[in-house]
């Protein structure tokens, strides 16, 4: 449970410490990739809570979603259509849904725990 959060902080630390920056033109792609990554992350957490988590699905989903989103943004730039909005929309909606499911599961667990405590 704590390892992934620690990982997140380590990643942030590494990112801020290294003097690595991407050119402005690619900032769009990175932002959409981050959105995809966050979506996958919350999807993974949800799956974990629902006990349907699969490592393969998670890892492949992570990379595949990032590539799809960046590819869509790239295509959009070259077609002159803001296709990345499609990715933003899809991932945004999924993000909210996943977080809502996570919240419900956590709430349900919490209340059941309380009830158990009261019963005992």
């Amino acid at each position, binding site marked *: 449970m704590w390892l992934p959060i620690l990982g997140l902080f380590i990643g942030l630390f*590494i990112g801020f410490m290294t003097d690595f920056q*991407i050119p402005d033109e690619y900032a769009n792609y990175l932002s959409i990739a981050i959105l995809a990554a966050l979506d996958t992350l919350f999807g993974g957490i949800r799956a974990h809570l629902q006990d349907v988590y699969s490592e393969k699905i998670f890892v492949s989903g992570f990379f595949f979603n990032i590539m799809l989103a960046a590819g869509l943004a790239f295509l959009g730039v070259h077609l002159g259509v803001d296709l990345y909005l499609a990715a933003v929309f899809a991932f945004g909606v999924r993000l909210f849904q996943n977080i809502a499911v996570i919240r419900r599961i956590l709430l349900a667990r919490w209340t059941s725990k309380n009830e158990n405590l009261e019963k005992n």
Partner: protein
Amino acid sequence: MNKKQWGFTIITVLIGVMLAIQFKTVKNTDVRDTRDTWQLREDLQNEEALRLELLKEIRSQEEKIAQYENNIAANKEEILRTTLDELKTEVGLTEKSGPGLILTIQPIAEELTIGSQVGKVTPDLLKRLLNELNRYGAKEVAIGGHRVINSTVIRDINNITKIDGYSIQTLPLELRVIVENEHDAEQMYKRMQVSKSIEDFFIENLTLDIELAENEITVPAYNEPIHMTDMKEAGKKSEGGHS
């Protein structure tokens, strides 16, 4: 369980790195100055020259104001006359002399052009040359003894190149260019030596000789009435600074 967590952790590390990079990129996107030292130095010099000019102008204007205020009654006429003279000088209605360059346009040696016609000075060539001279800081220019002012027209009328109605048919043609000071003259001389204009003239079977005048050279006054049918008086509140 443990193995699951490792995959998760690696992914979160990746997400963290991405987030951090994105943060940094977004934070640092304010306009970056990409000019190098030389460009900066050049810009600074330009700005300083502009500032000097503006200061000079301010001083002259202030002096004028003071003069006006002091001698409103007494010397009105004289001041008006000096102002008029100044304006005339600025427009080009007076003779002017100073350091500068003498450019001579000549047909190239005959041996080289057997069979082809003698070169002709086209308006385009002249305009190009004038633009180049102006770019390098020419103050006053006279072409073949005719002063070039802001409203001068150079055009082709019936296959004859004319400057304000004077035809240019005889070669060699002499251009006199006056610049601000000797340093500028030297600089312009060097620049003109490598200028593309020389090649342009050569293509037309003409040579452009550039000579740095040792003494001060004089350009004649513009001796035509100036027609200003399309000009309007600028608004009173116009920002000063353009001389």
